[in-house]
């Protein structure tokens, strides 16, 4: 009996930790990403990359968020354009998230907050198992819930008989 109680307490602890892990890893949100987006949205700024599922392209708007008239580079006076170019580029040409590289994708960056930001992680000599631990707990949570559901169904069937 005491063994069953200990097993029950451990299982409950795993499930609670797994629930915390689910929210920490944004597990459910990221699992259904693929159903919330489509190919076109993914490549448009203001779409998936900006966390806006509607895929709205803000560059197409004539006004900015403050209601000011949005100026494009071509409509600026010649003197202003030359000054901007002399200062090192327009900044307008390079505002695409796509040009900044996939590592700036906010969803991915959030997960690894504070660890190796800005560094190339293609080849690393480090082992960081903290997030792996959370994935393991979530995995164990699914296993424990399935085991108890299975037991519950079997118990229900036995009672019916």
């Amino acid at each position: 009996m005491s063994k069953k109680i200990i097993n029950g307490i451990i299982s409950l602890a795993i499930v609670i930790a797994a629930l915390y892990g689910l929210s920490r890893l944004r597990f459910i949100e990221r699992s259904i990403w693929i159903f919330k987006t489509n190919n076109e949205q993914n490549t448009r700024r203001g779409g998936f990359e900006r966390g806006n599922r509607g895929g709205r392209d803000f560059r197409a708007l004539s006004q900015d968020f403050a209601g000011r008239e949005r100026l494009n580079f071509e409509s600026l006076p010649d003197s202003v354009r030359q000054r901007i170019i002399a200062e090192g580029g327009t900044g307008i040409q390079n505002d695409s998230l796509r040009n900044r590289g996939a590592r700036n994708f906010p969803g991915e960056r959030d997960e690894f907050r504070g660890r190796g930001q800005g560094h190339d992680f293609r080849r690393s000599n480090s082992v960081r198992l903290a997030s792996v631990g959370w994935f393991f707990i979530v995995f164990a949570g699914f296993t424990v819930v399935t085991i108890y559901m299975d037991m519950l169904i079997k118990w229900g069937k036995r009672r019916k008989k």
Partner: protein
Amino acid sequence: MNRIKLILNILLLIVMLLLMDPRSFYGLEFHEWAGLIIGLFFILHKALNWSWIKKVTVCFFKSSPGRTRLNYVLDVFLLAGMVLMILSGIAIARTIDFSWMNLGGSRMFWRVMHTSSSFITLALFGIHLGLHWKWVQQRFKFKKVAS
């Protein structure tokens, strides 16, 4: 044979967990190579259980118990998840050149596909283990008796 299956399954689980975070274990290079190797592990896992797959496939609609059907359907989803995971991984690979495969689609699409399919597959792995928990318990009990 059961011991080989158990070791293979434990290896699959460990590698799968290490693959969940590409930065966790020696960077992206390990992630990509291990991702390909886990595909081979998975095929081996299926090959070792081929007799069960064959038997259930033949009599899936005739005389299979509900639990067997549930396991079979879950296995089909797991297979689909693994295929999507590996395919999307190939499409977004950086350290291994798979450009000759020309899979098409935007990089972001494959990236989202890779994340979603890996998360769903991990959850399915957990459910799969839960449904086979008795088998795992039997294997560990057998180990205790042997020692």
